[in-house]
């Protein structure tokens, strides 16, 4: 798995309202697009990294090293093309802001939390559950792929070409899995009483709390400081 998921007690970041995380994530990503000062971008990046640390989402040393090497190479290429160190650093930092912003929402928000947040909006129930199903599809497929890989490891090559082994051991089962998934979802959703036309209630709906206010406040201060670094105190 790319990131370590926290199962035990949820961190303050996990408890934030999904829309707050989404708003700050999208907001900072858009903000990073207009920023050109590396210091401002570094500040936005620090905010996301701090959020991930509080959320106890960690990268392994190997992942850190890969990210640093990748961004280093990108900076080097940019510098080679533009001969402007500030420009090169800004591009790499902007990309780093985009990359670190994604798990702030994705790795700290369960599909059900997102669907509960969406259910407070005047959206059709079918759309809300569709979000859950799409969100659930990827981890489920990841588990299937893990089993396929284990089966393939135990089978070895058995005298077949690598392409044949890949086709028979991965492509075909994957296609079956996807078709079966859609079939069984259609069946089991109805067996569990779901109807796209019927109104649903919501267990433990998320509410905006003090935590969210604090997070928005910190994000606003960070954004203001970034603006200050970019454009200075006045015109």
């Amino acid at each position: 798995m790319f990131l370590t998921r926290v199962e035990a007690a949820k961190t303050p970041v996990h408890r934030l309202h999904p829309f707050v995380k989404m708003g700050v994530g999208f907001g900072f990503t858009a903000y990073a697009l207009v920023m050109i000062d590396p210091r401002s971008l570094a500040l936005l990046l620090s905010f996301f990294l701090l959020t991930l640390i509080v959320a106890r989402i960690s990268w392994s040393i190997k992942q850190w090293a890969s990210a640093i090497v990748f961004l280093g190479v990108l900076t080097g290429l940019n510098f080679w093309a533009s001969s402007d160190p500030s420009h090169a650093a800004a591009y790499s930092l902007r990309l780093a802001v985009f990359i670190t912003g994604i798990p702030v929402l994705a790795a700290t928000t369960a599909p059900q939390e997102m669907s509960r947040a969406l259910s407070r909006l005047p959206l059709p129930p079918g759309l809300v559950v569709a979000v859950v199903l799409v969100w659930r599809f990827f981890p489920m497929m990841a588990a299937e792929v893990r089993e396929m890989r284990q089966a393939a490891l135990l089978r070895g090559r058995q005298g077949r070409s690598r392409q044949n082994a890949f086709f028979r051991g991965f492509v075909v089962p994957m296609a079956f899995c996807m078709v079966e998934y859609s079939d069984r979802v259609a069946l089991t959703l109805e067996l569990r009483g779901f109807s796209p036309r019927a109104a649903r209630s919501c267990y433990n709906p998320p509410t905006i709390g003090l935590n969210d206010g604090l997070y928005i406040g910190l994000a606003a201060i960070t954004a203001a400081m970034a603006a200050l670094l970019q454009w200075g105190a006045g015109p």
Partner: protein
Amino acid sequence: MIAVHDLTVRYPGQACHALSNMALEAQPGERVLLAGATGCGKSTLGLALCGAIPEIVPARRTGAIRICNRSIDGRPVRDMARDVGFLMQNVANQIFSDRVDEEVAFGLENFGTPAQAMEDRIQQALELVDGCHLRGRLIDTLSAGERQRVALAALLAVDPQVLVLDEPLAFLDSNAAGRLLWTLERLSRSQKTVLVFEHRRDMLRPAVDREVSMAAGYAIQAPPPALVFSPIVRGTSGDPALVFDSVDFAWPGRAQNLLRGISFAVRRGESVVLLGDNGSGKTTILALAMGLLRPKNGRIQNCGLAARKNPPGRLAEKAALLFQNPDHQLHLPRVGDEVRLASAKPEPARQALSSMGLADLADRHPRSLSMGQKRRLTLAAALCRQPELMLLDEPSVGQDDRSLASILEQLGNYIQAGGALLTATHDRRVADALSHRCLVIKHGQLHEAGKPHCSLE
């Protein structure tokens, strides 16, 4: 509560009826056990009772079904779900949420239950299945048995009048199975009708009011006597085929070890059974043995090869592991190809298929088989390869008495020929028949139980 008359179901493109003139009645509070050979139409009956046939699953249905004194004709499946809760054979199919509480709440949300009433109903449902300790857990971290309990709790939370349970004991440990039997009794007292499809009749018989046997789509009232499985004979004891020496294991990111100081050996000509509660680490031991997982400490020797130093493919040349879910171990377009690839000559392949009752299915695609048939096919293919060591994970799931007898007979021959066998199971019949020795995992440590204690787990 349930009244089925002249029920006939035929799937498109199939020559035979899946159910033929089936008749069945069950009263409020009655617990009925439906047993029958694999493929006799039990799951089809379940799908018909909850209205999924023909509404969602395409098939031609004739005859009458009445649930709670109402005909199911014209009732949407969603509406039927209020009256009939259907626990499927593979519970992974009916789980939608990430966490246990949310999964139990999913059905309640669908029926618009007020949020303030949900908490109590979630708690009560989890208490019924002895699953309160699972609250807040991620579903992905649960064992198969724990998932089954959560899926059952999710059905119970909706409070349907009829419950149809398709092989509910399949992955349950002895404690959870005992709890399920107690749950059935409680449901019966509250006038719920429970229909259980299960091959392990011996376990369920004390907890049901009536037993009905099905054969090829018909309900036969007098069930045949259960087969008694004789213990397999020990082969000539030889060198250890599998050695675990002080093995510790922890999942990445977890501080606590799942397994601590595990040491045991399985010799050639010997069959060892691995017992333990759901989530105790039985499957993990099998994966460690094949090098699919790395131990934190300790040494594992598989057929003379160090598991840490050799890739799983190399270990698999000498040993075979049969997964709990056989789907991904079958990868060829025909059933016959799976065994032919494993066997050097065609005759042993034909015999292997025949001995597992699969000879007539040789030209079918493996994916079209039932779960029990797939499991027998993976076993036939593994036996054809004549491995020195076989590791089996819940081999009896989905097997009727006759199929299980075939499996045990083949495994007996394998042991007699000098093979070594390690089987992880919750099934007492398998444990009693296969165990020359029993090992029990409790709180991460392994205890030698000896043969007489196998059933007690």
